[in-house]
């Protein structure tokens, strides 16, 4: 064996490999960093802010890893290549794909606490748990979450609303709005056996509400307009148009005249790629981005977010956060409590209990009430019953999508916020995104609070 020749060749191999690593490392520092990924249509991570607390908890280094990955040299080329590799894994790309995932929304901390006030009437039966969406089906450029709700969960949801009715029946009018997801309208017939029909589930909830609770039939309104852009294709939420039709149904029930769409200024945020892409990384969704439309609600109103630890300190915000990313334009994200003081001088107040699905619905209420309270049931901690009484709320709306109305931890959350709880506050992640935006009103207030 020619040892000198072997050594020389191996030396070349070692040097080439090391140089490749070093060169990419140098490129990372030398090349300008992009703010947006055009291929994934999202903001890329920025350099994390250093703090000893974040360093000690490992968050700083995790953020550094993400920052490095997001700003890796020739990132877009690598991402495109990764898509091609995925297609090369098998025999040709179909128009549809399956992604089985655990339930897409992580259980919030309020779901199971030591002071869980869920009594037997609302308790989840053994064997019926939190799984209401176990997979995502992508077809025709749209992501659909398969519905897995059960009669037991539907009844548990209704029972929770009824508890509020029993406690507040002489004080407020309660409205229940459960809306279907996109799967109900857009799942091709040949795949129907993969999901559970949502209408019977929604009807079961509405038919088991106490007599004083008004069940709002948003389903029929949405069905009548199903050929319109009611749901986002790449996200698990609906569009403002879908929310508008639910709002119309609510107005019918409440005796209001709804705002006409053409009476409001419409704006759009194109090229939005939502949560379903985050879960699946499926290129079909990148090829059919969403447009997030929003309507400017007429009138004068002031919006306050309450999201600090005691949920009592107000920070000025906006109903529609126009610098927000995609769906975040609606309310700026999820907060424990938002209060809107409007120019409608009718002495009426409404409180909306919601998760993120209620975000595009909430702003419409500013046209009909003097005060609008928007409660994020995953985070609210002040005790809803007393809050409603102390603030003279007239109407109480529970808004949810069918999927989460059948989710155990969401039902528990709605139940658990009845009374004040001394549990650690989980500040919603979405609200923190806005802290980095230098133009944010919220940022200025947060800085002053520190």
């Amino acid at each position, binding site marked *: 064996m020619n040892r000198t020749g072997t050594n020389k060749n*191996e030396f070349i191999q070692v040097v080439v490999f090391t140089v490749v690593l070093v060169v990419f490392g140098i490129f990372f520092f030398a090349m300008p960093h992009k703010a947006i990924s055009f291929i994934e249509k999202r903001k890329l991570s920025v350099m994390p802010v250093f703090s000893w607390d974040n360093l000690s908890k490992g968050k700083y280094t995790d953020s550094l890893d993400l920052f490095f990955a997001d700003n890796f040299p020739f990132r877009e080329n690598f991402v495109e290549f990764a898509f091609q590799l995925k297609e090369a894994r098998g025999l040709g790309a179909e128009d549809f794909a399956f992604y089985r995932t655990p339930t897409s929304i992580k259980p919030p901390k309020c779901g199971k606490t030591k002071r869980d006030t869920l009594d037997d009437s609302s308790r989840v039966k053994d064997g019926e748990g939190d799984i209401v969406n176990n997979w995502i089906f992508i077809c025709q450029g749209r992501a659909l979450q398969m519905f897995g709700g059960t009669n037991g969960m539907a009844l548990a949801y209704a029972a929770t609303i009824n508890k509020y009715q029993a406690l507040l029946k002489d004080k407020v009018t309660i409205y229940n709005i459960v809306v279907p997801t996109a799967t109900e309208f857009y799942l091709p017939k040949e795949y129907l056996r993969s999901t559970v029909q949502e209408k019977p589930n929604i009807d079961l909830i509405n038919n088991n509400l106490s007599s004083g609770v008004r069940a709002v039939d948003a389903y029929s309104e949405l069905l009548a307009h199903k050929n319109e852009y009611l749901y986002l294709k790449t996200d698990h939420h609906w569009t403002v148009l879908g929310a508008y039709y639910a709002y119309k149904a609510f107005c019918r029930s409440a005796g209001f005249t709804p705002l006409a769409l053409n009476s409001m200024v419409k704006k759009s945020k194109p090229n939005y790629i939502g949560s379903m892409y985050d879960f699946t990384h499926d290129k079909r969704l990148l090829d059919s981005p969403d447009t997030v439309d929003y309507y400017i609600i007429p009138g004068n109103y002031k919006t306050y977010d309450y999201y600090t630890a005691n949920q009592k300190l107000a920070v000025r915000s906006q109903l529609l956060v126009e610098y927000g990313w995609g769906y975040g334009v609606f309310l700026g994200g999820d907060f424990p409590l938002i209060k809107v003081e409007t120019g409608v001088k009718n002495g009426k107040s409404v409180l909306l209990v919601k998760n993120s699905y209620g975000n595009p619905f909430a702003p419409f209420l500013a046209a009909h009430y003097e005060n609008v309270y928007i409660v994020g049931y995953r985070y609210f901690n002040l005790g809803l019953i007393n809050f409603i009484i102390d603030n003279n709320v007239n109407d109480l709306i529970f808004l949810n999508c069918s999927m989460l109305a059948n989710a155990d931890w969401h039902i528990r959350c709605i139940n658990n916020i009845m009374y004040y709880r001394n549990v650690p506050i989980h500040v919603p992640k979405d609200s923190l995104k806005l802290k980095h935006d230098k133009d944010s009103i919220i940022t200025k207030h947060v800085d002053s609070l520190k």
Partner: protein
Amino acid sequence: MLFSSLAFLYLFLPLNIVLYYLFKNKVYRNIVLVLFSFIFYAWGQPLWVTLLLMTAVADYFLGRLIEKHSGTSSGKAILFLSVAFNIGLLVFLKYSGFLYENINALFSVSLEPPSYGLPLGISFYTFRSVSYLVDVHRKDIKAETSFLDFLMFLSLYHLVAGPIVRYSEIPDQIKQRSFNIHHISSGINRFCIGLFKKVCIANIAGDFVAQYMGGDPRLLTTELSWFGLIMFTIQIYFDFSGYSDMAIGLGRIFGFNYAENFNYPYISRSATEFWRRWHISLSSFLRDYLFTPLVLKFRNWGKSSAIIATLITFTICGLWHGPSWNYILWGFYFGALISLELLFLKKFFARIPRVFSHVYLLFSAIMGWSLFYFTDLSHLWNYLGVMFGNSENAAFHFEFFTVLKANIFWLIIAIVFCMPVYPFVEKYLMTHSKFAFLQPSSLFKTVVVIGFNICLLLLATSMLVGKSYNAFLYMKF
């Protein structure tokens, strides 16, 4: 930090290689390795680095003390205390939650378990420490006199998640590592292969595992439940063996020669053989420090001594993997299989065609992984029910064929590389004269190898870019 993170590949590793070889002095090289190891451990868990340092200081002095009192009863007592200290720390940090859970269940109390989190690599460096101390006591090695060298041995980041390398295997390499371009070259090759196995096979399999085993089994069809479990069988092998390849590769780059940790376990014909091919460093550790002493202790019981020692050893092996009953049962499961083989199964399979023993082992290993995966035994029961026909969903749902079709090439590659194809091809090319152009001294071969390494590196990089944190399965140990 993980080997399969971009920050490690393109910042940490090249910096480490360059700085290491910048110095010719062996002390400076060891200092570089220690510094980089501590940065590696501190990345993500800065506070726990102090525990690693504290363990190193304690075990360094304890090792010297044991050697000083070697052969005496005090030496034995010091050994016992030092092992208890190391194992006690591991138990406290890793198993206290499990202990509290079981005490609460047994005595109907509600004690609050401490929640400290698990320091990175503690299961591995604890075993490295224990083997060092026992070997010093047995006089198999001399106690390390240089604290720097001992600290480097204990903290080497290559070994953060295995293999379990004993001090007795590398004493010369700790003191003196020579520059050997052949080793560095083969180390790079090995590292790239491991990276490919982890990122391009294990991670993809892991996505399917999360989808099919991570959700509600009531929504699965029978074939999808099998698919999910086979994906886990693939994931765990390629994840762990890929990581071991990367560790061995890194070792060679820096002059260390670690022993092999996996030897194509899925081609085994018995559970006994499986454990000679799977996580070899762990099974040999348990054999030398637990099984053999147990057999000696029970030697008067005849064949039963081996059975009892096997059951105890594998139960503890299971427990080492995680603080949960399913791991203990998984360990016991393999202990029982090996015991049955010892008693009669091995003889039975020797008399029938080999294919049956292969099928037996594959089936046993796959079923064992179901026990390994589900920490909640009721979920396991539901999943097994679906696997054996108790599914509310009609069989052969179109989803199964769609997923299979979309991933068939990848699946074939994964299955093929469970077998010793690479060494077979390598040996064939090296021993046949018509492939002389691929001899080590050939420039063509160099180009092929460089291309191969860069190709694997870039394939893995493509898949890592845009993905977030992807932990090794065994990182949690």
